[in-house]
């Protein structure tokens, strides 16, 4: 009796799961199918293509200058991530591992900087970058990372805190200074955390729409793919088949990196410093 009930429960649970999974996947399937249709079918009620047109993806590259868009996105996301790591790892290390007067205040300021909507400071920052002549490029979005990113500092600090102090204490006894402890002890042990922070910022920059809208909308040559995607339909008279193909092409790098890095994410959660 009880066993039959739990079997029924199991079936019910998995029915719900599969239904939810189908609902979450359905829009992807629809976009994928549309991207493989003729332009006429893509703009109609047809759900399943009557003929398949993978060459749509080649046409996207020819028609929309995809290579430049990819390059701009990769420059934005790649440099932003690199700069963030350079500036934020030492800051997070100091907040996690060095006791000093004022560290609590700094940490609270970081939480506020992380949580407040960026729109609040948009006007003065735009004025600043336009005085420097850098509007019309992605630099106003890349360069600030050289001076730290609040969310990344927060994330890295939380991760560094999970590394047992004994490791850095024993390094200190061996005569290491803080810089050496950071580069030789904490950073190697915090690789999953550092990778997670890097991937978060990379995705955030790759997906960013508001920043590029603000700083590059006047200069199509600087557009990253996330921004350009929103303009295809009408500025270039692109049909739905190509728009959907471009949308898929914008998602692919993010999805690939996610799958490649899933292990790092899991490691980041499970491996908390004590191993071997």
């Amino acid at each position: 009796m009880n066993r039959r009930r739990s079997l029924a429960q199991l079936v019910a649970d998995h029915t719900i799961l599969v239904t939810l999974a189908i609902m979450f996947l359905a829009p992807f399937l629809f976009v994928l199918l549309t991207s493989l249709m003729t332009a006429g079918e893509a703009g109609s009620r047809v759900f399943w293509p009557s003929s398949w047109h993978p060459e749509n993806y080649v046409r996207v590259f020819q028609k929309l200058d995809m290579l430049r868009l990819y390059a701009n996105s990769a420059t934005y996301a790649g440099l932003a991530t690199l700069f963030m790591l350079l500036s934020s790892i030492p800051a997070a290390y100091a907040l996690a591992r060095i006791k000093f007067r004022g560290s609590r205040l700094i940490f609270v300021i970081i939480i506020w900087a992380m949580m407040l909507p960026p729109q609040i400071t948009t006007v003065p920052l735009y004025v600043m970058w336009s005085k420097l002549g850098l509007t019309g490029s992605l630099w106003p979005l890349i360069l600030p990372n050289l001076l730290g990113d609040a969310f990344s500092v927060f994330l890295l600090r939380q991760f560094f805190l999970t590394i047992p102090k004994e490791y850095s204490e024993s390094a200190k006894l061996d005569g290491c200074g803080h810089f050496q402890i950071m580069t030789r002890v904490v950073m190697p042990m915090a690789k999953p955390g550092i990778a997670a922070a890097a991937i978060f910022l990379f995705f955030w920059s790759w997906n960013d729409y508001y920043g590029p809208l603000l700083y590059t909308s006047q200069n199509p040559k600087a557009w990253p793919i996330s921004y350009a995607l929103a303009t295809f339909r009408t500025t270039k008279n692109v049909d739905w088949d190509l728009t959907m193909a471009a949308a898929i092409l914008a998602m692919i790098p993010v999805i690939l990196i996610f799958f490649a890095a899933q292990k790092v994410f899991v490691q980041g959660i499970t491996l908390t410093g004590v191993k071997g």
Partner: protein
Amino acid sequence: MAGRPNAREEVRESVPAPPPAGLISRGSKRKNLTPWLFLAPMLAGVGVFFIYPLAMTLYYSFTAFNIFTPPRWNNFANWIYLFGADPTVKTAAKNTLWFVLIMVPTRIIGALVVASALTKAKRASGVFRTIMYLPALIPPVASTIAFVHVLNPVTGPVNTVLGKIAQGLSNIGLEVSLTPGWFTNPNWSKPSLTFLALWLVGDIMVIMLAALLDVPIEQYEAAELDGAGSIRRFRHVTLPTIRPVILFAVVTGIIGALQYFTEPAVASAVAQGKATVGGGMNSTIGWPGQSTMTYGQWLYLEAFNYYKAGYASTLAVVMFVVAAVAIFLLLRRFSEFSPEVAS
């Protein structure tokens, strides 16, 4: 501020163990300087990209400023306009409040439903988790375009299916209209954005799932032995564990609603079929009617379409105050839940 209850402990911890004799003088001086060297770039960043622009925003809010010529002081003119005369800010604030009251709770309940379904997966739980998280991962512009297309009133698959159902019902004598205009109808545009936000629920879902998996299974078993039904089990076992996550989701949801921009802007432009470049997009923001005009979009338009940057700064100061109250509440409650999070 955040972790005041914890301050004493901090002091106690920071009392250093007596260092070996001979190391004191040189070592302690260096120790005082080192953290500041490590923090220097970030502190400069906080100053240049956070504190300075916050102060400037406050200053601009009392000026007439068009970005390109120097600001002119105009006392409280912007403030009086904001609270008295601006017709659009009321609509924008109402719509933003709609998103706070409807979209934020809907997403939290959606995240809870999906996360608890995921805890029951016996097999391939990683695959299911990835599938539910995927939409939150991809560029929001891509997901918005996809969703507007799926909900296209004429050619989208949702209305095609709903149309067939309505057809079937009319065959048996029930005349109902089941095919809304979704993103093209001012009554449906906000619910449509809410459906989109549900599809993108992965970000909260992941945190919720982690919290749900933290609930000790023994507690469920004990509650079940005591004869607690599923509702009581949820109230007395699950809810206390996920309460911090819910609070976090509510606060970040309010802040997210204040700055809600990409999805409504792109959805309006795509649904109306206009370009989202320069003047093109600015002309479609809020469409249809002003039904999707949010506070964050209004701030953007005032600053960068009408070049009323002084007034936009006034809008920004109000946004700051609302967000600050939310953050303050979060930090205070979090230090009650678990001091180490806020410390």
